[in-house]
Every structure is written in structure tokens, then in C-alpha cells.
């Protein structure tokens, strides 16, 4: 089943690999680079916001157009090149086959293709920064028409072209994950014995599969408008501006659930492992994630409350948005309630996973006024929105990513990252994240609009909260400093020798297949010496009568 003595060329093994583990690592390295790049773009913006608004435009380090470009590309890169490839491409590709007991993904060559399509899309997006004398796309990550079609330069065309590659990559990847989960589960791994991480990846992949095509259509139309001169979105040609928004948000709302669901999956795994008891309400979590996935397709227009929609439509989308908060609350509550009575181990992954809960809670709660059409009239397009979505993605998903990296690092490399450095990284990041995003709610409540290069300097209603710009920027720079500690820890652990204490392939004493049946790192080509069979659920910790405090899924 697994090993062969075939000596693979360097290119076959490390560049055009069809091994899901190496592809997962490729996705991971590339997306970490893009996350860092997106962070740096944000720091330039924050410097501008904190220090240059009073000095007059000539002294600003970046022009307003450049600020817009940074903003648009920060959003695009973080969402499409950073977070999604990390949670789905890296974590999904690496762990899904291992957790279901499969030798690889269902379509290994397609997997390789999906990575390289992502890579090309990333190169195109990066290339847009280097067009001579021209800006990258500068019409927001949302690329609304008519601004996007009328803005100068080829930057937007690059953006659209890059998106086509990224969407193709995503479609292939999601197909692969769904087929792997449905078809390649080992004997005994029934639906309700799957780790919650797998359920999260399954629902996420369905969202990616069915929601991306309308954005593809929108990108084709917009590209056609810019390059061929068509009038799809041009009202004077009988086109419709709102059509773009419908098509865009039809994807982009499920997209935000794509950002959060895998993170919930990662957090669930780590919490279950570190409380040494089963997750409370596993079944409710599973049904809630399915319900969440389904509902995410019928809430999109809550991003469009201020486009002049009729009251019937506003009510419909408001109601569905309120309903969709229920499954998210169920999942979060189940995770909180699981902590009760647990023998909690506070290692670095657990610290990140635990802090995810209240941080995501803040993000979710602040989403409620935005979902109410009346309150949204005041809050739409203000800093309140930026605060809300960053809370869910930054101290939300990105903390889950950190948690996952610290947690699965020993599986991937056979070495555990340093705990002390990890804890410093954690506390620093937690404080700084809140320092950046909490003030945004205050700014937004005064009515301060987003996407303004001078941070609201011209507006009387923003005067009292302008000082917060400097607070947020300093927090951002400090946050960067703490990430340096993490980067050091990451590379130092990666390149040092394995300690004699690191011989256990299951250092966290977990129950799931990737820990109990695979070596650290797992065998190339085939993952398992012997195909495992599953006998019980995924979270059998502290089982009465069993000597160890964990009962692996595959133990007879």
C-alpha cells in the first residue's frame, strides 16, 4: 500500500508533488508568506492613518489612491491568498486524508493542479504591484462597479485575471475534499464518529463549490466590461450596477463562513484534546454546521441594505440573518460548555483556541446590529464593520490558525515548538489584537466611514475619536513585533535537531487517527503502515474503566 523504493527526482518530490502532505505544506508556506505580506500592507496604511493626516497631502507617505490600493489588496490577499488557502488548502489537504484514514486525497494529481493554480493566481496578484507607473486594483476587495470598471490603469484587470485562477484552484480543491471525505473513510468511520474538523471541512467545501461560480460570472462580466467595452454593469447601456453586487455577495457571504468554519473545526479538535473529556453537544455542532452552511446562501443581501432595497426584501434578509446567528451560537456555546468539568491543559495551542471563543463571540455579537437593517443604516460602511469582521477573522480565524500550527507542528515535523516563546507570542498577540480592533467599534459608532485615506480627519463627527488612530497603529506595530517571536520559534524548531524527548508520535495524547496511527511525520505515499479500522467516536477521553485518559478511535 505505501512504500516503494522508487527514487523520485527533486522536482517530482518537492515541486510537482502529488503527495497531499507536501501539497499541504506548499499551501501552508505560500499562505504564510501572503499573510505576512498582507500584514505589511496594513502596517503602511496604519502608519498613514496615525501620523500623516495633519500634514497635508503632499507630505503623506502614500497618496490617497495608493491608500486605496493598499486597502483593496490587503483585503484580497488576506482573504483569498492568505486565510482560505491556509485553512482549506494547508490544514484541509494535510489533515483530511489522515483523519479519515486514507492513503491520500481522492485525486492526487488534481490536488497538485489546484496548488499550482493558486500559485499562479498569487503571482498575478503580486505582479499587479509592479506595473510601471500604475497602481494595483484600488476599488476595494469588493471591486464594486462602476468604480472598478472606471478606475484608471490595468490593476483591476490583473485582479480579475488573478481571481479566475484562484477560483479555479478553489473549485478543484473543494471537489477533492468532498470526494475524499465521502468515499475514502475507513471501515467503522461512520458519519457521527468523524472528528468535527472533518465536518467543518466538508461543509466549507460545499460552500466553496456552489458559491464561487457566481463570482466567476461577475468577474467575467467585469473583465468583459473593462477589456471588451461591454455594458453589463453600465446603466447607460441598459446594464445594472446592482447585478454586480448580487453576484459578488452571493459568493462573498458564504466565503466568510468558509473563513470561520475550518477555524471552528481546528478549535474544536484542540479544545477536545486539552479538556480530556468529550465535546459537549457534538451532534448539535454537526447539525448546526450543516444548517449554517445552508443558510449562508440566503443571507447575502445584508451587505446591501443601503442600496435602496424594498422593505419586503430588507425584512427577508434581516430575518434570515438573525436566524443564521443561531447555529453559530450553538457551536460556540457547545465549545464553551465543553469546558465545564474538564481537566484543562493550558498549553500554547489551547491558549489560542480558548481565546478564540470570546474573540469570536465579540465578533459575532457585534455582527447583530449590522444584521438589523435599521441599525445598519447608521453603521454600514463605518469602522464598526471593520471592527466586526476583523474580530472574527483576526483574533478569530488567525488565532485558530496559530493554534493549529502549534498543535499539529509535532505531527508534521516530529518536533514541538517552544512553549515559553509560544506563550509570549500568545499574550502579546491577544492584547495587541484587542488594541487594534476594539477602538474601531467606538470610531464606527460615531459614524466614521471606512476606506478614507486620512482616517476621518475632515469630518467633525470624527474629531473626538481621531486619537484612537494612533493607539490602533501602535498596537499594530507591536503585534508585528510579537509575530517575529513566533516566526523565530517556527524556523528555529523546524531546523533544529529532534530532541530525545520528542520520540512520541502522539505527544498530545489525542484520540484521532492522524495522531494514533501515523508516525511523525507520516510515511510518504500511503500514510499508514496498516490501514486502520475505527471502533468508536472521535472524542473518547476519560472513558470510565479505561486505564488511559484517552481511548483512541482505532484501538480495538
Amino acid at each position, binding site marked *: 500500500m505505501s512504500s516503494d523504493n522508487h527514487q*523520485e527526482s527533486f522536482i517530482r518530490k518537492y515541486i510537482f508533488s502529488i503527495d497531499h502532505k507536501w501539497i499541504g505544506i506548499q499551501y501552508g508556506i505560500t499562505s504564510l508568506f501572503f499573510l505576512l505580506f498582507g500584514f505589511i500592507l496594513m502596517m503602511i496604511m496604519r502608519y498613514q492613518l496615525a501620523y500623516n493626516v495633519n500634514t497635508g497631502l503632499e507630505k503623506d507617505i502614500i497618496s490617497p489612491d495608493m491608500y486605496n490600493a493598499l486597502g483593496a489588496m490587503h483585503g484580497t490577499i488576506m482573504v483569498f491568498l492568505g486565510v482560505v488557502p491556509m485553512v482549506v488548502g494547508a490544514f484541509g489537504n494535510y489533515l483530511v486524508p489522515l483523519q479519515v484514514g486514507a492513503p491520500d486525497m*481522492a*485525486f492526487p494529481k488534481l490536488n497538485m493542479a489546484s496548488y499550482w493554480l493558486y500559485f499562479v493566481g498569487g503571482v498575478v496578484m503580486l505582479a499587479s504591484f509592479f506595473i510601471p507607473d500604475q497602481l494595483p486594483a484600488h476599488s476595494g476587495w469588493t471591486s464594486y462597479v462602476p468604480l472598478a470598471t472606471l478606475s484608471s490603469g490595468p490593476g483591476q484587470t490583473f485582479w480579475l485575471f488573478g481571481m479566475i485562477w484562484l477560483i479555479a484552484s478553489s473549485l478543484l480543491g473543494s*471537489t477533492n475534499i468532498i*470526494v475524499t471525505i465521502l*468515499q475514502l473513510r475507513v471501515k467503522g468511520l461512520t458519519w457521527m464518529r468523524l472528528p468535527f474538523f472533518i465536518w467543518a471541512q466538508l461543509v466549507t467545501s460545499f460552500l466553496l463549490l456552489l458559491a464561487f461560480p457566481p463570482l466567476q460570472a*461577475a468577474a467575467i462580466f467585469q473583465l468583459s466590461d473593462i477589456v471588451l*467595452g*461591454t*455594458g453589463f454593469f453600465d446603466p447607460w447601456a441598459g446594464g445594472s450596477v446592482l447585478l454586480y453586487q448580487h453576484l459578488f455577495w452571493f459568493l462573498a457571504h458564504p466565503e466568510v463562513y468558509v473563513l470561520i468554519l475550518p477555524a471552528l473545526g481546528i478549535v474544536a479538535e484542540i479544545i477536545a484534546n486539552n479538556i480530556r473529556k468529550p465535546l459537549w453537544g457534538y451532534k448539535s455542532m454537526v447539525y448546526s454546521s450543516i444548517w449554517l452552511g445552508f443558510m449562508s446562501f440566503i443571507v447575502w443581501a445584508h451587505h446591501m441594505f443601503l442600496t435602496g432595497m424594498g422593505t419586503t426584501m430588507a425584512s427577508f434578509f434581516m430575518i434570515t440573518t438573525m436566524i443564521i446567528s443561531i447555529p453559530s451560537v450553538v457551536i460556540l456555546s457547545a465549545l464553551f460548555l465543553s469546558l465545564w468539568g474538564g481537566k484543562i491543559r493550558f498549553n500554547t495551542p489551547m491558549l489560542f483556541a480558548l481565546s478564540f471563543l470570546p474573540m469570536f463571540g465579540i465578533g459575532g455579537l457585534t455582527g447583530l446590529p449590522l444584521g438589523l437593517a435599521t441599525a445598519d443604516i447608521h453603521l454600514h460602511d463605518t469602522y464598526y464593520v471593520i471592527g466586526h469582521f476583523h474580530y472574527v477573522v483576526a483574533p478569530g480565524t488567525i488565532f485558530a490558525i496559530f493554534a493549529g500550527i502549534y498543535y499539529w507542528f509535532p505531527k508534521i515535523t516530529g518536533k514541538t515548538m517552544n512553549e515559553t516563546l509560544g506563550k509570549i507570542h500568545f499574550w502579546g498577540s491577544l492584547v495587541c489584537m484587542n488594541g487594534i480592533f476594539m477602538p474601531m467599534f467606538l470610531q464606527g459608532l460615531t459614524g466614521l466611514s471606512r476606506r478614507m485615506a486620512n482616517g476621518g480627519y475632515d469630518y467633525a463627527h470624527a474629531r473626538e475619536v481621531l486619537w484612537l488612530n494612533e493607539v490602533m497603529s501602535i498596537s499594530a506595530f507591536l503585534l508585528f513585533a510579537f509575530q517575529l517571536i513566533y516566526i523565530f520559534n517556527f524556523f528555529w524548531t523546524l531546523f533544529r535537531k529532534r530532541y530525545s524527548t520528542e520520540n512520541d508520535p502522539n505527544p498530545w495524547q489525542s484520540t484521532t487517527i492522524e495522531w494514533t496511527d501515523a508516525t511523525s511525520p507520516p510515511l510518504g505515499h500511503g500514510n499508514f503502515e496498516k490501514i486502520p479500522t475505527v471502533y468508536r467516536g472521535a472524542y473518547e477521553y476519560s472513558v470510565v474503566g479505561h486505564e488511559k485518559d484517552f481511548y483512541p478511535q482505532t484501538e480495538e
Partner: protein
Amino acid sequence: MDIEIPYNVDEREDTGLYNSKLGIWLFLASEIMLFGALFSSYIILRLNDPLPFLQGQAKLNVPLATLNTAILILSSVTFVMSWVSLKLKDISKFRIYMGITMLCSFLFLVIKYFEYESKLSNGYTPAYNNFYAVYFVVTGLHAIHIIGGIIVNGYLWLPGLKMWDTEPERFTNRIEVAGLYWHFVDLVWIFVFPSIYLL
């Protein structure tokens, strides 16, 4: 070099499917959403401003498009027959039927070329008005899907045929899966033809 992935050829008991069949249906589901988005946009644009659509439609060459429809339907049935030939282990029949399918697909594109040429040379570009924008983008995207199909079918017809000697069931499955894609392309045209040319 290649690891043995379970259920590549045999069907898994509880789902009743082999991997690539599930994979292709998932892909087709996403394509349904893509063409659905295009149709939805077509409806909106036409309701916004119907006149260009009515005028432009009158200028389209319906007989030629009907011929194209018939050609595509023929290619669909010959594709199924090529799969049946494989099931009956008749490789020469497979070659013939797949060859007819390839021929039909090329004919479709040739006729499409003449259609486009007659519009473009008279100045009716996609930028002319929204009817032509929709016409060119929708039929153009469909044509791109035909080209994709030609590439895959061509590969299976010629170099890919080698797999028949070593793994006949896996090859038959490949033809079935490619057939599902091809039938879907035909299905899309079945809706595009009346919506754009006739109604």
C-alpha cells in the same frame, strides 16, 4: 509511484459511486451555478432594457443554430454509444463513435466561427449593445467549454486509449465521466439555444 486509492474503479457500498463519478457530478454542480448566474444576469439585463434583445435576436441565424443544436445532440448520442461499445468490449466501435463525436464537436465550432464572423464583420461587437454582450459572453463561454471537452475527448480517443490494455474498467469509467461532462455541455446548449435565439 502511484499509491492505490480505494474506490477508483470499484464502487463504494454505502455511496454506490466510484470516486471520479462523484467528482464530476460535484464539478457539474458548480457549473450549474455558473451558467445559472449567467442566465440570471441575462434575465435581469433583458428586463431592464428589452429592445436591444428583441432587435438583436431577429438578426441571428436561426437555421444555422438549429443545425448546430442537432450536431451537438448527435455528438451526445455517439458519445453514449462509444461508452456502450467499451462495455461490450468492442474497441474499434469505440474509436468510430468517439471519432464521430470529435467530428461533430469540430463542426459545431466551425459553424460557431461563421456565426461570430458574420456578426463581428458587420460591426456587431460585444460592445455594440447589451444583447451582443450577452450573446458573445454566454455562447463564448459555452464554446470554451466545448474546446475543453475536445481536448479531454481527444486525449481519451488517442493517447489515453493505452489505458484500455492495462486497466479496461478504469478506462471505461473515464469515458463515462467524460461523457457526463459532455452531456452537460449539450444540456447547457439546449437551454441557451431557445433563450437567446428564439424566445
